[in-house]
């Protein structure tokens, strides 16, 4: 079941077309990566989903229903440009934001206590936000985003401002939330977090969706059938062993072993390759070179622009 259906959404800002016929389906209980270069239209789309603005044309369905005001209570949103009231106390502010999302005071206090203990920041309850460091404020802000246990979370660059330890903390929280059934839309430039977290992605460039699907399928789509082989042995022997059906892309010889990058053509399998090579060289290791999300991003965007 798709928790969110974006159907042919377009949005113009004065002279600039931010979104052009964007259609996306976001399945429930997944982590969905919303990717794209700066200015592509991601923030515009996010603001339409969170009902901060409305589309010029097209529509959005949340759990099968057209998007309406009560849906905001079921969504959590962490904007890229984010902040808190500087002069307000942490606890009081978190409570205020929670109640704006429809939580009762008692419920909010209970959940806040839980999260503050989890992140070990109980001592900050009475502190003013301006007294916190950036990372601390980010932690507080993260809590306020997820406190009302929304079914649907949108996080725009959630990892900025976090050191590696806290980034890991947040990452694990997100996975935990996903396992509990939350659908998470993650918009980020940090491709390594996409690799680690996302099940599905959509790539937007210049107001259009240029790539869309599950990470697995997309990887398969961009599969280049490239392999990296570590071996010990003779170079000539190696290259001779690979005859038709393989293309040698690169070969690096080092003292102890050599590393070759080989492209497999046609319908051959890894077993075929191994059986060809094994008589001639000692295989140390063999691995498919899977394109990284970073590579896919770059490749797809440059293709789109030409």
């Amino acid at each position: 079941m798709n928790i969110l259906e974006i159907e042919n959404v377009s949005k113009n800002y004065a002279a600039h077309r931010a979104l052009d016929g964007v259609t996306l389906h976001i399945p429930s209980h997944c982590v969905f990566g919303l990717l794209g270069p700066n200015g592509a239209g991601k923030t515009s789309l996010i603001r339409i989903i969170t009902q901060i603005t409305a589309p010029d044309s097209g529509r959005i369905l949340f759990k099968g229903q057209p998007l309406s005001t009560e849906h905001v209570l079921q969504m959590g949103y962490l904007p890229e440009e984010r902040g808190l009231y500087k002069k307000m106390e942490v606890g009081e502010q978190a409570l205020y934001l929670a109640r704006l999302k429809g939580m009762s005071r008692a419920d909010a206090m209970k959940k806040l206590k839980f999260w503050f203990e989890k992140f070990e920041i109980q001592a900050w309850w009475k502190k003013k936000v301006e007294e916190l460091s950036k990372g601390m404020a980010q932690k507080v802000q993260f809590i306020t985003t997820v406190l009302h246990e929304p079914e649907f979370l949108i996080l725009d660059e959630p990892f900025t401002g976090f050191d590696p330890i806290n980034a890991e903390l947040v990452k694990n929280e997100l996975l935990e939330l996903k396992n509990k059934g939350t659908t998470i839309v993650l918009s980020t430039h940090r491709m390594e977090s996409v690799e680690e977290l996302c099940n599905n992605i959509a790539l937007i460039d210049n107001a259009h969706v240029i790539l869309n699907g599950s990470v697995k399928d997309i990887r398969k789509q961009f599969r280049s059938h490239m392999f990296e082989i570590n071996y010990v042995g003779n170079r000539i022997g190696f290259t001779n062993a690979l005859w038709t059906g393989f293309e040698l892309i690169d070969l690096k010889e080092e003292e102890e072993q050599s590393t070759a990058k080989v492209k497999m053509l046609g319908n051959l399998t890894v077993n075929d390759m191994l059986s060809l090579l094994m008589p001639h060289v000692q295989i140390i290791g063999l691995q498919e070179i899977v394109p990284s999300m970073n590579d896919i991003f770059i490749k797809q965007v440059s293709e789109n622009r030409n």
Partner: protein
Amino acid sequence: MNKILLVIQREYLTRVKKKSFIVMTFLGPLLMSGIFVSAFLLDKVDTEVKKIGVIDNTHIFVNKFKDNERVKFEYLNEDVEKVRSESKNRGYFGVLVIPATENLSSLEKAVTFYSESQPGFDIISKIKFTIEKEINTQKYISAGIDESKLLAIKTDVNIQTRDLENKETSTPLTTGLGFAAGLLIYLFIFIYGAMVMRGVLEEKTSRIVEVIISSVKPFQLMMGKIVGVALVGLTQFLLWVILSSTVFFALTSSLMSGKSDKEKAEMIMKSRPGMEEAMQQADEDSPIKGDKMMKLDSILGTINFPLLIGMFIFYFLGGYLLYSALFAAIGAAVDSETDTQQFMLPVTIPLIIAYVAAATVINNPQGNVAFWFSVIPFTSPIVMMVRIPFGVPWEHIVLSMVLLIAGFIFTTWIAARIYRVGILMYGKKVTYKELWKWLRFQN
């Protein structure tokens, strides 16, 4: 609806708990009673007695100049030059020289007052009054008119102002009240309107606004803020009234213990604007009559206080709502406090005009200027308040109130459209053309 209440509550509590609010709550009445006390004390401090040497070569005016607390007259029989050069040593503030002249008419222009520093209005007018009185008496005598007959003829006209219900009123008093009310509204609109603007700006610069408007609509946020700040203003005003009255009664009972009724009334009168004029009026009409002060109570009774207070609250709220919407729009349109200046000016000009027009209105409370300025919603909060103590036909009041309500609905509508675009707009140089675009932008 519930969400607006949450916003109102937050806006109210964060401001009311601030140290600055608590300080102002106590400072305000202290300042006001300080003004009252200092007016009283300054009066006391100024008890330097001025000695004036009188050289009267006509011998008409001997002992005719009346001494009082501040001024004492000494009658001398010496040479003018001698006295003038010695005046400082002898401690005279000034020397009054009345030369012997051929006739009384030439005397009128021949009197001279020599002093090192310029004498105040009070001394000159006192001297002038006494001399005129005596010259008049002399003229009557030389014309052969008997002095006792003179006193019988002397008329003392005293126009009493009464309202249509035949209760006595006092123009200076109503003026004072009107001015005070108008000033108070002017100040409150400025102070609390600016508070709204700063709040909006704070949300923009701290970047929290996007988080909030993913939970509430921009209009709810704007109205929540406006209403919350209004409540802060009303709370502040209420606390001031309570505290001021308490302090006032405490002070007056301690300062006034041991004084006669007359002196007490004098003290009250001296420390209020308008009251002073009322007293002077009483003084001018008859320096002897003291019972005018006793009529203070009945005069105050003619002022319709419930109406005044009710109208004050209505016009404060109406004026505040009208202007704070515009202030919210300004805050939403710009990125920093310095950028607000260019928009503040056009918004505050009507307020300033209203305050300046108040003077004209006081002289002619039923004239055209008064009518139009008390009816147009941008100036009516101030000008109508100035008019009300003088009595305003109810049709004017109703028209003014209706237009004010329409006014703030209108400015709220405009502000909402600008607010909703502006709060997420950063870095754009905002011009009026840009604002017009935002106004027409359909969401």
